[in-house]
């Protein structure tokens, strides 16, 4: 049998087996060693080199070029992780194609050898190949034209700012709050002291848990529909809305925001957002319409207690504890 043909079979068959059998082993469902995919790729390359050398196949330069080019395609399409966008893929493949061409044309001999089968196909020395290629290509061109002309519509992409810059002050229930200095009046103690306390059961034993319980009660009567029983933004109505409700478990939301920012967002809701945050489709109510000021602060207290996050503070201030400051005690001295 023709050695070139064997080499071709080694490549196509090997790639099929590797891709369908070995690849899943290297890419388990649970994210593990992400580098494994690259080890897998090196294995394919090693397999091809070793088999070709061991069997002394000496494939012609045209087949080598095809293999090199295809491996590049395979790498960018399936191996590279996370997957690159389509435009970037095209750019990478252009570079890869240029590289492959440089490899072919490294000296006139290899270049001539590379051209030889192509010229033979064109003039008809490889009859079957000519028939197949010369019928297939026009069909592909026709099909490509059809795809290009066929009108398709995809909804426009909409970008939005998730955490817009807050205003300097906000007026809630007739009272003005300066966001930079506004404090949660119910944060009277270090939150971590209560992480093992029970809402309801400990509510009459201490003030802090009483406020957490009341805040939780407000949350589970009003907020859980969107923000979820787990505060992860997956409430029973969350899938309906776009933008999707905030996930408080995520380190990118309440964990990096100040309580006064939350107070402003909760009080003014969607309609209080600037235009870059798409106020027209936010389902967040301006809660000042439904809740009292105290209830808003308590629900914020609850959200931090439940998730275990601490509100963000400025570097210059110590973690503040509103009530203690007022009483002239040092923060944290309890």
């Amino acid at each position: 049998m023709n050695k070139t043909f064997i080499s071709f079979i080694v490549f196509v068959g090997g790639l099929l087996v590797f891709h369908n059998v070995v690849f899943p082993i290297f890419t388990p469902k649970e994210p593990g060693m992400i580098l494994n995919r690259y080890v897998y790729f090196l294995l394919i390359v090693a397999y091809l080199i070793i088999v070709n050398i061991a069997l002394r196949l000496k494939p012609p330069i045209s087949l080598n070029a095809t293999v090199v080019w295809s491996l590049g395609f395979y790498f960018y399409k399936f191996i590279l992780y996370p997957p690159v966008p389509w435009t970037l893929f095209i750019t990478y493949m252009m570079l890869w194609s240029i590289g492959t061409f440089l490899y072919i044309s490294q000296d006139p001999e290899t270049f001539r050898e590379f051209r030889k089968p192509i010229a033979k196909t064109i003039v008809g020395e490889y009859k079957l190949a000519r028939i197949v290629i010369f019928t297939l290509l026009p069909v592909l061109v026709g099909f490509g034209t059809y795809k290009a002309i066929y009108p398709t519509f995809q909804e426009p992409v909409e970008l939005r700012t998730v955490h817009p810059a807050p205003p300097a002050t906000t007026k809630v229930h007739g009272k003005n709050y300066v966001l930079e200095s506004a404090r949660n009046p119910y944060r009277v103690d270090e939150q971590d002291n209560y992480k093992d306390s029970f809402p309801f059961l400990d509510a009459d034993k201490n003030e802090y848990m009483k406020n957490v319980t009341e805040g939780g009660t407000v949350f589970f009567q009003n907020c859980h529909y969107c923000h979820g029983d787990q505060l992860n933004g997956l409430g029973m109505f969350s899938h309906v809305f776009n933008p999707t409700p905030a996930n408080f478990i995520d380190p990118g939301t309440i964990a990096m925001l100040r309580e006064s920012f939350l107070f402003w967002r909760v009080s003014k809701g969607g309609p209080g957002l600037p235009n870059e945050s798409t106020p027209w489709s936010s389902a967040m109510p301006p809660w000042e319409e439904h809740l009292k000021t105290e209830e808003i602060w308590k629900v914020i207290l609850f959200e931090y207690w439940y998730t275990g996050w601490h509100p963000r503070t400025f570097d210059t201030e110590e973690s503040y504890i509103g009530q203690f400051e007022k009483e002239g005690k040092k923060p944290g001295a309890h």
Partner: protein
Amino acid sequence: MNKILTIKLSRLFFMSALLIAVSIPATLFAAPQPPDAVKKDLLDKGKKVYYKRCVWCHGVEGGGDGPSADRLFTRPRNFIQGTFKIRRTDSGELPLEEDLITTVKNGLPGSAMPAWGEFLKEDEIIAVVNFVKTLVQDRSFDDTDEEVNIQEFGSNPWGTKGPYHLGIPQEDIDAGKEIFIKNKCFECHGGEGRGDGNPTMKDDWGFPIVAADWQQCWNFRGSRRQAFDPFNVVRTVSTGLNGTPMPNFKDQITVEDRWKLAAFVNSLCPRKNIDPLANKPVSDFLISSKFTEGKVATSIADPMWQSPDADPKIKAWPEEMKDNPKKHYIAMSGQITRGKRNFDPKADNLWVSSRWSSEENAVYYLLEYHIRFLSSDPEYPDAVAMQWPAHLQDLFGAEKPYFIFGDSKKPVDVWRASFLAKDYNPTNAPNPEGYKLDIKVDEFNGRGFDALTPKEHAPTVEVVDSIFHQGRVKVLLKRSLTNENKETDVQIPSEQFIPVSFLQWAGADKEKDEHMALSTWFYTILEPPLPKSLYYMPPIMAFVFIGLQGWLVWMTKRTRKMYDEGKVKRDIIPK
């Protein structure tokens, strides 16, 4: 040393033989066994989890009366009586610990109970389940008189695979339908399974309850996040749902027949791509309006308007429907933002298909949604509406009016079809003919959720056909693309993305004004007709390419000839 090992091995062998001997008959003959006793050592941990995560709905004593309970439909479970819906044990019996763990892990789709499997650790889930067992007061998991019989369900006879479980033979589905009729499932679940059979049902605690809508299987409480798996139906039919009017059919229907019944129930549920996080179908955010040659049919029954609910990418459509518009899935929720809020909407989705005709200069929208029971109170009619930006030309970029009836700067144009069904009574037997609707359209502009103004000019939107059939409302709306009321009416251009949203009022729930169900903004586009060039350009390009190939052959041959005749020298490779 060896001796000890031998003794140990033989003991091990003896123990496992004993275990097998005990467990085989237990599974084969489903002998009664005591319920899984409470694991006392886990209770401290379980209590911690319960009072942090569960108490808000299920209440301090597990009575299903936490702060959220009154605003939920279905209400949270009351644990006190030990009544658990999703089990593998006989009707009326306590569940297995494994059943409760699976419930906590997967949540109860269609209710507020979320899936805790990705949130809590395995040991926390086992602990909290054991704590919940101690909240049962009227009976006890430690009671020696209690017994549970684990049911045998057999296995999926067709070996179908998730997520969509397609490929069950039609004759089994048809046989399932016979079983459905014979056992009178329609009395509660309705003639086509939309849960529209009985409006008066109550659960064990006297709260109103409705039968499952089989065409929305992602809301099956026991679906275990595998919406299309027929096993869920087999289990429910075999064990019943404790605390609800759903009985068990263990003795009436053989296991084989229960699988066929399940196949029928499942075949009704449209195959849609289910979002694994929300456990609901993914909304079709672009509603494309199909260009129609000539006139659009004005009857909902016309073949032009028949499209399957299933996604054609998942389940192929019949040939004769290939060119019909797709039914777009629109997720709905209660309006829980402004004014009088609606925490328990009666429709949680809506299906929209659309056609337009340049000959008629008109666009048609067919709105469909499931609702179990209609209102018969003229003061609270049922209604469904489409909401548009009234001044499309004033919107810049992604800008839209506020999604609840617009805002002061950007008004909306609302087309609302309000209706009462003729000769309808919620307690009527299933009516295969459906009910004609006494329907009228009111058009109004909104400049805020509390600022609605009826239009003064003559109506422009027309209901060309409508029906209420077996728990599903269908309304076909028509409007001209443009008209002279530029101030109040949306002017609909073709080939442009136009924001649109949907509103729905359930009269039986006394919904009115902003007390409604709604969707977020979607986009609609009037698709242009397929360009004529689609038919001639591809062959032209192919022929041009064939010409190119011919030229290439000619060129290559000529070069060869010139080499052979010595007219041109081949490039010489330096040695």
